[in-house]
């Protein structure tokens, strides 16, 4: 039962499997995003209050979700690497970081552009925005810390610890709109009751979430291959593969 887990710890298996999955993830992501953008921009009806500006949600919400998901994945992978000393877990953690950071930036900027017509300001120091900004700083901290070590294995472990320490921020971001009086609107999709958004607006959004997630997966696979090679440069399987 655990064989698949053990295989995930094997660098050549990870290298080959990531290569196999990436193009499929990319293909389906492309289709989902294309559908989501077209349906969201053209066919979804304009919002009663926000007019056509609400269409920003189709890029803003998936970006925000990925920023949090990415950080959590980075922290969990780091924890697995620390606890069970699995190098491939550290490779995943390292690969996720720049991808997650880029989506955090996307979320912050699209949110800012959405905030200007909606709230009248490009920025506000409210709990959701502030904690998301802190998330970006944490991403940079983890990446810088990893890079500062000459011994990459030690850098992996230090970065993993920092990622774990910072993961407290993620639930704060998610629940900030519930716990405090926030400018940012509350959850419309990520809640347990039926979503409060009508179907014609919701379907493209779900498609965008799916598309972005699969895209994230594809990017993770591609970066992961680079991380594996960097860590396994001297090993025999790499040499065999390069000689062929």
């Amino acid at each position, binding site marked *: 039962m655990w064989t698949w887990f053990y295989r995930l710890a094997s660098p050549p298996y990870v290298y080959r499997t990531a290569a196999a999955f990436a193009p499929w993830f990319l293909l389906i992501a492309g289709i989902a*995003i294309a559908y989501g*953008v077209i349906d969201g*921009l*053209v066919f979804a009806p*304009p919002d009663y209050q926000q*007019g*056509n*500006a609400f*269409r*920003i949600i189709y*890029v*803003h919400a998936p*970006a925000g979700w990925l920023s949090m998901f990415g950080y959590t994945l980075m922290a969990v992978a780091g924890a697995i690497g620390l606890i069970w000393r699995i190098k491939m877990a550290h490779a995943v953690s390292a690969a996720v970081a*720049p*991808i997650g950071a*880029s*989506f955090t*930036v*996307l979320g912050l*900027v*699209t949110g800012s*552009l*959405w905030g*200007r*017509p909606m709230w009248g300001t490009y920025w506000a120091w409210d709990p959701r925005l502030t904690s998301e900004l802190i998330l970006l700083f944490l991403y940079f901290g983890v990446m810088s810390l990893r890079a500062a070590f000459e011994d990459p294995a030690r850098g992996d472990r230090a970065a993993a610890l920092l990622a774990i320490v910072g993961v407290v921020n993620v639930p704060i971001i998610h629940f900030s709109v519930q716990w405090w009086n926030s400018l940012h609107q509350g959850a419309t999709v990520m809640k347990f009751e039926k979503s409060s958004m009508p179907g014609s607006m919701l379907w493209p959004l779900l498609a965008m979430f799916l598309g972005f997630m699969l*895209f994230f997966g594809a*990017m993770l696979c*591609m*970066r992961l*291959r*680079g*991380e594996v*090679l*960097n860590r396994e*440069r*001297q090993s025999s399987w*790499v*040499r065999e593969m*390069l*000689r062929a």
Partner: protein
Amino acid sequence: MTVDGFFAMGGYARYVWPCYALAISVLLWNLWSARRYHAQALKRAQRALAMAGSERS
């Protein structure tokens, strides 16, 4: 919605279109960056192999 209306986005064009442009840029950057990272790693691995090979000879 007319074509003009589509581009105007009800007056919100200068907020909506930069968002989508940035989104595409981020996706493309990720694609480019990941490929570049892998290519660099491959090059470094090949160089390591070449050095090891030349050491033995």
